[in-house]
């Protein structure tokens, strides 16, 4: 405690040399100057006094003919570097107050424990119940957050928001998905969802009514859930993997002429500041009179070196003007564009399987590139359909 007091009052370690240093010590004592840690080393007296007594001690030393060397310690001495730095001195209390004030708000949200849910989903749900960067910490009630979040995100089993100053960690535990159990008492058929020639067939349950090499139409029965054993009808939940060679016919068109952007070189840039969800534009005239322009935004996010980003970002918006110029698409380019589109289109139709072969024909007709493609694929065509053997419709 004494050390803390000494630090704030400020102390001086003095070295006293002279013919009668003890006389000076006695004079100091008579003058009521407290001192401590007196040592006699190398023919000189070393001791410590309060900084405020230094001028008086200097005067006494001069009177007694002693030489004094002083070394100053303490708070004021430490803070002497701030002398004359008025900007720093004025900013320091502001920073101090800001640190005290800003820690009452959440500035960074971190989600932990999520596996299937993405962080954005959790953050959006939190935002919808009023927890986002800028939220006052004391308004967050853990139990209410939990209740609302579990209602909003059924995938969650448990959630907790831990606050550490301006930092909030959202701990989530996702509900364990129970595997889907097939009810063995259901009765179903497996039918073809597309016409084709069966290439492979794996029947897990039910009675196969087709075999490999058979050609089937869309909706045709492949595996039946109803069968007979002796004189009884057996009902099954038919399950099978059936692959078939199928044929996909596709027509795609592309305009022969398209507008290409020809940049004029004119460029207009502006700056904005985004704090949380609020955006401030640092320009008065935000209107762009040009008809065609590309808008490019460069976002500079404020972040700490560790990777923690603040909800503050500086955005530079660049508008580059261009003139749309009609340009003819060359055949090669049109072909590659349409081929890729056709491939994506067929791949999207397949539930499972591969595209085996594609035959394409590209023609230019009435200002349009037309691609006629025929693809053959080996794909899964099995589709499970529930049936009710007791309904009249099925038995008619």
């Amino acid at each position, binding site marked *: 405690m004494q050390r803390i007091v000494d630090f704030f009052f400020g102390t001086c370690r003095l070295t006293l040399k002279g013919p009668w240093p*003890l006389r000076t010590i*006695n004079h100091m*004592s008579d003058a009521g100057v*407290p*001192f401590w840690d007196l040592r006699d080393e190398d023919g000189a007296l070393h001791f410590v006094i309060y900084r405020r007594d230094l001028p008086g001690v200097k005067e006494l030393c001069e009177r007694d003919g002693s030489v004094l060397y002083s070394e100053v310690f303490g708070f004021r001495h430490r803070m002497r570097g701030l002398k004359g730095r008025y900007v720093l001195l004025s900013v320091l209390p502001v920073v101090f107050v800001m640190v005290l004030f800003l820690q009452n708000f959440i500035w960074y949200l971190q989600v932990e424990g999520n596996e299937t849910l993405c962080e954005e989903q959790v953050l959006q749900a939190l935002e919808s119940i009023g927890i986002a960067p800028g939220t006052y910490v004391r308004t967050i009630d853990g139990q209410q957050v939990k209740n609302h979040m579990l209602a909003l995100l059924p995938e969650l089993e448990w959630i907790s928001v831990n606050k550490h100053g301006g930092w909030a960690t959202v701990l989530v535990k996702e509900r364990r998905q129970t595997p889907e159990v097939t009810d063995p008492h259901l009765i179903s058929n497996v039918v073809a969802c597309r016409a084709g020639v069966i290439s492979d067939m794996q029947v897990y349950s039910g009675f196969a009514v087709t075999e490999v090499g058979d050609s089937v139409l869309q909706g045709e029965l492949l595996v039946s859930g109803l069968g007979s054993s002796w004189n009884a009808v057996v009902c099954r939940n038919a399950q099978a993997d059936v692959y078939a060679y199928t044929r996909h016919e596709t027509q795609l068109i592309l305009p022969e002429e398209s507008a290409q952007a020809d940049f004029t070189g004119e460029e207009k840039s502006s700056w904005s500041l985004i704090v949380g969800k609020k955006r401030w534009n640092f320009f008065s005239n935000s209107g762009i009179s040009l008809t065609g322009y590309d808008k490019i935004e460069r976002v500079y996010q404020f972040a700490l070196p560790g990777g923690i980003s603040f909800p503050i970002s500086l955005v530079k918006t660049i508008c580059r003007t261009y003139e749309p110029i009609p340009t003819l698409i060359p055949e090669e380019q049109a072909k590659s564009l349409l081929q890729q589109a056709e491939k994506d289109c067929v791949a999207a139709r397949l539930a499972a399987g591969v595209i085996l072969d594609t035959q394409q024909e590209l023609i230019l007709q009435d200002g349009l590139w037309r691609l006629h493609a025929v693809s053959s694929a080996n794909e899964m065509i099995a589709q499970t359909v529930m049936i009710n053997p007791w309904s009249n419709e099925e038995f008619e």
Partner: protein
Amino acid sequence: MKRPVRMLLKAAKAIDVPPQLIREVPRVTMEANTRVFVENHGGISSYSEQRICIYTALELLQIEGSGLRIERMDRQNIWICGVIEQVGYRGRD
């Protein structure tokens, strides 16, 4: 004005008054053999790690030992620490 302390002490003894009532009487308090607290001192006569002599109203207070050091000193009190072997009064030189 300097008061005649010796005479006052004799008078106090005669009328059976405790000498502590006389303001100038030095008071020495010793804590084990590591610390001495001297009240009502009159300054330091000599100072070394082996011996410290202190002026008092009566006689010269002599403290002997090893590693002696004045821990703190103000107008009335002196705190001395170190290994104290002997504390006594001796006539002024």
